[in-house]
């Protein structure tokens, strides 16, 4: 990977808006504009616009496209209807994760895959290495798309005023293709990474900035704000969504991450099936837990988790939940430990972890 940071088609807009730009996964991205907490609350209460153009895209096309995806993904794609999307994990044979993905069925024989920015090149290389005799073509479209996420209770009202696409009947994880704010061939999906209602919009790269400006302008009266990566992280943690490299990795399987629902053992074969089945039947060595702290201090990734004097795990993610007004996050904890005994070491102070089964925001 080169040291040169990539810029999204919205780079100039971020600078104009006064964003603080930081390096992220090889990209120069806005971490915040007005402030993480203010931006977070705008998404929960009004609306927010995210530039997620750093995410990668790959098209999988060919007679065997659905069967190929069934063979390399944990979830099932032969049963997915066109104009619908599905979340999945792509695993190695040992059950570790190559990446977590959303896959859109465009036509019967054509899918568009959304890739994590840090994994895009690795994912495409991995998929190519698995093609074998399947009749599929994998096309790298990473540089062809700008991706915007419009999230929050007013998202539908704002987007409806910029497109003739029918959004009110669009179900969760369904998508339509058409013109948005004058840009043709946009993919508008009712998906998101915040827990609030909203859309993810794929815009041809050249029109990305113009569409973002139109949305910001149209949403201003409703309190729409541009949202950076800082609030993207606190929003996804409140909603309980994993982030690759934290709750999922080459070392943390979907079973450990609590994502068994994405693993379809009903399929006779797929990469990782044997390992994941063994983990399901025999149990996992450690698993991801969601916690909150009754404190103001935030537990940072890598902080040690204890049960009594025994180190039993580590923090994977940590932030402040602006909705709960307390620190939340995730930890990887050895199996068989009583969750009521868990503490985290924050700079020499042990604080009790309040473990919860359900996300903080639904």
């Amino acid at each position, binding site marked *: 990977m080169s040291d040169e940071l990539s810029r999204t088609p919205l780079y100039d807009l971020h600078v104009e808006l006064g964003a603080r730009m930081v390096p992220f996964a090889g990209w120069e991205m806005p*971490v*915040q504009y007005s402030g*993480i*907490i203010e931006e977070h609350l705008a998404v929960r209460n009004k609306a927010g616009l995210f530039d997620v153009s750093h995410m990668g895209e790959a098209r999988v096309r060919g007679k065997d496209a659905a069967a190929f995806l069934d063979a390399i993904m944990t979830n099932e794609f032969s049963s997915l209807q066109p104009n619908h999307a599905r979340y999945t994990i792509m695993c190695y044979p040992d059950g570790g994760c190559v990446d977590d993905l959303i896959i859109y069925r465009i036509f019967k024989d054509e899918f568009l895959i959304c890739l994590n920015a840090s994994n895009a090149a690795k994912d495409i290389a991995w998929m190519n290495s698995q093609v074998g005799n399947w009749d599929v073509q994998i096309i790298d479209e990473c540089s062809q798309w700008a991706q915007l996420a419009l999230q929050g209770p007013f998202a539908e009202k704002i987007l409806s005023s910029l497109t003739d696409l029918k959004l009110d009947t669009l179900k969760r994880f369904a998508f339509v293709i058409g013109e948005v704010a004058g840009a043709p061939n946009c993919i508008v999906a009712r998906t998101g990474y915040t827990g609030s209602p909203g859309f993810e919009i794929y815009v041809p790269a050249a029109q990305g900035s113009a569409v973002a400006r139109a949305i910001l302008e149209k949403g201003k009266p409703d309190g729409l704000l541009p949202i950076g990566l*800082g609030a993207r992280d606190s929003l996804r943690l409140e909603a309980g969504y994993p982030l690759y490299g934290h709750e999922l990795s080459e070392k943390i399987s979907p079973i450990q991450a609590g994502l068994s629902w994405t693993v379809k053992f009903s399929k006779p074969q797929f990469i990782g099936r044997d390992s994941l089945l063994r983990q399901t039947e025999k149990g996992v060595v450690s698993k991801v837990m969601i916690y909150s702290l009754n*404190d*103001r*201090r*935030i537990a940072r990734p890598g902080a040690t988790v204890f049960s009594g004097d025994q180190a039993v795990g580590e923090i994977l993610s940590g932030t402040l939940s602006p909705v709960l007004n307390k620190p939340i996050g995730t930890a990887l904890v050895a199996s068989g430990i009583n969750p009521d005994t868990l503490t985290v070491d924050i*700079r020499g102070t042990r604080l009790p972890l309040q473990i919860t089964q359900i996300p903080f925001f639904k």
Partner: protein
Amino acid sequence: MSNVPSNLHYTKDHEWVKVEGDGTVTVGITDYAQAALGDVTFIDLPKVGKQLESADVFGTVESVKAASDLYSPVSGEVIAINSSLNDTPDLVNREPYEKAWMIKIKLKSAAELDKLLDSSSYQSLL
């Protein structure tokens, strides 16, 4: 642009120091520092009576993004802490030079004040 009041002294670690003229100083963090930290969520301050040497860590300021140590600009005894920051740490973001003062120190040696930066020297670091 960061606000750097001309009546205060500064350190390269982005603390400000107000010389009260009675052998004490008041210490906080600068507008530049609060902007770089982002939303402040927690501030850990020392107990009154603590003896500090210049450049000792006297506390921690934590934002959504990161935790940063606070360094004492001078040597002396902590004679007061701003306990209102326990409940409203975001004062640091809103009024870094006024309401969000952090500690008051009784100076061990007034000569240490000469090592502090004036506003124009501090401004030139930003």
